């Protein structure tokens, strides 16, 4: 375990939870603006999980999921991903493509493109909120998308951070429109060296 991880005590977790709330709040507002749908959002759970327990984030490792990933650069390098279970990804496509609920049955090129852009918007809003609050520069690189076994996606995300054994902030997010909730998970993985920067920026000494 790295020094940065050990420094993550309860106070830090609380502060990061606040950061996460603000970030996801902005993300959902931007989605509402885009779709013209009055989304509400709740964060039923928030956790700091070590990357080797990443699997617990999803029910089954072999379940199909869709994830949009964006590397974060600038003052606090890291990785952000938004992961949706397959059925929720399909519902999100229904919504974005103005389809009947349940019409999207497969995630092909069109659907992946829609999900990539939606993920891009959500993640960018999330990062902007954090950057504004912490007064950091957090530009992101273009997004990538994967539709595959959830375990394979999570393991691939875990491997992008060179210091495995480090922790990710996982933010369970429930987007609710009038019909059915769309659940997704925000994963925010700061690089080990970035965590102290983030903590300092939000007023906590790392």
């Amino acid at each position: 375990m790295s020094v940065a991880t050990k420094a993550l005590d309860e106070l830090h977790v609380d502060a990061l939870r606040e950061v996460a709330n603000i970030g996801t709040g902005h993300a959902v507002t931007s989605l509402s603006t885009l779709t013209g749908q009055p989304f509400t959002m709740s964060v039923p759970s928030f956790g700091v999980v070590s990357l080797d327990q990443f699997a617990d984030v999803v029910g089954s490792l072999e379940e199909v999921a869709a994830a949009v990933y964006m590397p974060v650069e600038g003052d606090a390098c890291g990785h952000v991903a938004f992961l949706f279970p397959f059925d929720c990804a399909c519902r999100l496509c229904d919504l974005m493509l103005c389809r009947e609920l349940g019409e999207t049955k497969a995630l092909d090129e069109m659907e992946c493109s829609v999900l990539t852009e939606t993920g891009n918007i959500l993640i960018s809003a999330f990062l902007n909120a954090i950057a504004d609050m912490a007064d950091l520069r957090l530009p992101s690189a273009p997004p990538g998308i994967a539709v595959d076994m959830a375990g394979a996606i999570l393991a691939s995300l875990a491997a992008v951070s060179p210091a495995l054994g480090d922790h990710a902030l996982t933010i369970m997010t429930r987007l609710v429109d009038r019909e059915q909730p769309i659940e997704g998970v925000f994963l925010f993985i700061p690089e080990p060296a970035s965590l102290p920067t983030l903590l300092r920026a939000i007023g906590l000494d790392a």
Partner: protein
Amino acid sequence: MGRAIMVGMAELKVTSDPDDVLVALGLGSCIGVCAFDAEAGVAGMVHVVLPESVEGSGDEPGKYADTAVPALFAAMRKAGASPARTLVAIAGGAQLFQFGGNVARLDIGKRNAAAVQQALRVQSARLIAEDVGGTVGRTVSLRCADGAVVVKTLGQGERELATLAGRRFSQLARAA
């Protein structure tokens, strides 16, 4: 199917119980290294996450290709396997995330595959089958009863990659 023993990220498992099936679920850029000595009936699997170890990290050896492969062979030997008889198959090392026009990023899968292959060469290991690279995640299992290595992918179902037994393998079998 026998008793499934999960081999999580960075884990290394060795068994000589013929009822056991070693399973690495949902390999993305990770690699499942399967080893089997048919005569001794010893099966081993390690779930490699990254190519190179960081000195003094105190991490489990199974995490990195360069430490995982020697550790797997040492554990197999301890369980009574002979390195000379042990046959190896590897699966995983995919690049799941697709970027518009840019595939150079997140190429950990490719680097993992190269590092595992290199580490196996160092051990003079008999790598007889591999299913690495590509863009899809895999679940790989190794049956201790007969050394059968089965790879499961999304959409393509299950497929037997190799059976790590017998002498009929003179050259490396590659996945179609």
